[in-house]
């Protein structure tokens, strides 16, 4: 997809801004990011722009990335843990075309990482920012469809219904059925949707060294977990939150026993194979 179009007629040449967004848009988004950082877990409405990738394909995360990125940045983009999955490839190609920044697959090398549904296995530092793509910014949507009402529920700390939802799961199923998108309490104040990361990644948000920014383009919300902020999954004392279990399984490529694994059905339809979901980390381990 040529971003700088040069058709035969030079009059039709269209040039885009650095990082695509115009300065007014970038300024607004940066302001909203600051507000989000100042009020951890609070969803800040923003004037989400249309991007040349589809709504629901990471336009919120993309707008955050584009409003923050500088020519000196090194960018990593992952989709479901993988640097070469469709969504990551799309976004990477686009951002590189409109910024020319260096792209990497190495988590430790990147200054800015945009991700869909995973937090990298390798710990991140204060110098890095992780931008998460968010389809549903509202954790309470599970119990209340109306935006007007959920905003009031947050304002009033009216979370009884959300807890009731978890209680009901426990009495009927022995455990909370929510798998990915597990609701968390941020800074002891707001219930937040951590984006559809698996449970495995939820503990990584707690008191982390990294700034996490969440962008929902279609729903037009930005929120944040600043470094060193408490992030607690909603849990009961006698039914503690548990991450996915891969007991007895290990990655068949790198041998890891401490990573989130993808389960893959073999051609015979019966045999299961397990590989690291974080592919670049898996590659790195194999190399060393």
């Amino acid at each position: 997809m040529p971003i700088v179009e040069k058709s035969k007629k030079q009059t039709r040449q269209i040039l885009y801004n650095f990082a695509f967004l115009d300065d007014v848009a970038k300024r607004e988004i940066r302001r909203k990011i600051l507000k989000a950082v100042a009020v951890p877990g609070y969803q800040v409405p923003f004037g989400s722009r249309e991007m040349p990738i589809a709504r629901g394909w990471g336009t919120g995360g993309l707008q955050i990335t584009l409003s923050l990125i500088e020519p000196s940045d090194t960018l990593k983009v992952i989709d479901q843990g993988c640097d070469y999955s469709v969504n990551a490839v799309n976004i990477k190609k686009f951002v590189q075309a409109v910024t020319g920044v260096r792209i990497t697959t190495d988590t430790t090398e990147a200054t800015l990482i945009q991700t869909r549904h995973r937090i990298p296995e390798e710990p991140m530092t204060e110098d890095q920012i992780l931008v998460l793509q968010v389809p549903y910014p509202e954790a309470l949507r599970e119990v209340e469809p109306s935006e007007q009402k959920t905003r009031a529920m947050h304002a009033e700390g009216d979370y009884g219904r959300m807890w009731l939802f978890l209680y009901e799961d426990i009495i009927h199923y022995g455990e909370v059925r929510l798998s990915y998108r597990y609701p968390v309490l941020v800074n002891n104040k707001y219930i937040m949707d951590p984006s559809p990361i698996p449970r495995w990644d939820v503990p990584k948000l707690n008191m982390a060294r990294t700034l996490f920014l969440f962008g929902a383009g279609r729903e037009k919300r930005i929120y944040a977990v600043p470094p060193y902020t408490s992030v607690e999954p909603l849990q009961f004392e006698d039914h503690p939150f548990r991450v996915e279990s891969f007991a007895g399984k290990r990655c068949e490529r790198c041998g890891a026993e401490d990573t989130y694994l993808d389960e893959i059905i073999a051609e015979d339809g019966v045999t299961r194979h397990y590989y690291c979901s974080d592919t670049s980390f898996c590659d790195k381990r194999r190399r060393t």
Partner: protein
Amino acid sequence: MGYVAVKGGEQAIENACNLFAYQRIKGGSRPLAVKQIEEQLYLLIDRVMGEGSLYAPELAALAVKQAAGDTLEASFMLRAYRTTLPRIASTLPGSTARMRIFRRISASFKDVPGGQVLGPTSDYTLRLLNFDLFDETKASAQLFRRFVEHNLRSHERLPDTFPKVIEILRTEGLIVNPKSAGYSDESDGEPFDITRESLVFPAARSARLQAMARGETGGLLLLAYSSMRGYGDVHPIVGELRVGYLPVVVPDPYTKAPRVAGEVKVTEAEIIARYDSGSGKPLFTVGYGLCFGQNEIKAISMAILDRAMEAAENNSPANDQEFVLSHIDGIESMGFCNHWKLPHYVDFQSDLDRLRKAQAYHADRGKEQKTDTTNSL
């Protein structure tokens, strides 16, 4: 591992893009000229401009061509292009009384001042396939064009402006005044800008009308239809429907004097709805719709929904503004629908883990209950 292959993924994606473009031309027929699409598929262009919220017939035609006729994709391209354009000026508020009209009807009176102007419409055509179009040639098209142009010339020219039916009723005190209490009106203030701010509920009427103007035609029709069928009580009569060209007036950058910068084709619908006595005297209420191009279904649906959303009770989907406004954008909804095709295997893995745990719990509980009964026996 299909589309998530660790290696070769990038190439596969590239190939998929190329195959899509190839599909349109592989038949070998003469490539469509953008001009042809613009002129001959003008209703499609009108729809794409509306939903893409950019008035640019030529670009819309290009988008239609590139999207192989998919209206959602074409509007999407137009909308994405729109984001990159600088805002040079804001148009001055204009009155649709100044519209250069080519079609105008009122369903509320047999005749209205200025007359009923049917103009170009498919409303009265017989929906029989015209097999002659199979053999349409440049010459046959020209012949028909001359025939129509000759016939029309015998009629008088249309006047430049028409009085507005709604205004006539308003002067008679039959229609609610938008400035009266309990009716949302912001004609004195700056309108909300949904392209710069996120909608919050309850939304201002200007925000509601904007959101609908760029809404997806089918989505608006569906909701409006639900209201007319019985999930609501608007009971509309088309007060006036007009299609024509509206002057675009911008302030001169130097003198600030208003200048006409061009004109846009729009459809405007004003529906008269069941009366209301909210402010004391019973008066008819009005619903308003206006969209780019000739898209009468959309303008009427908008007007019905505009009125429905004024209802005090959210007792039907069309009355609930959060429900309507959150779901009518074609570009948002198609994007989200398409996103389910993206890989979700990490999420599914997490789901599998939950299900396996729940199944184990279920099995344990079954065993417990069995032992319970054995004990009690």
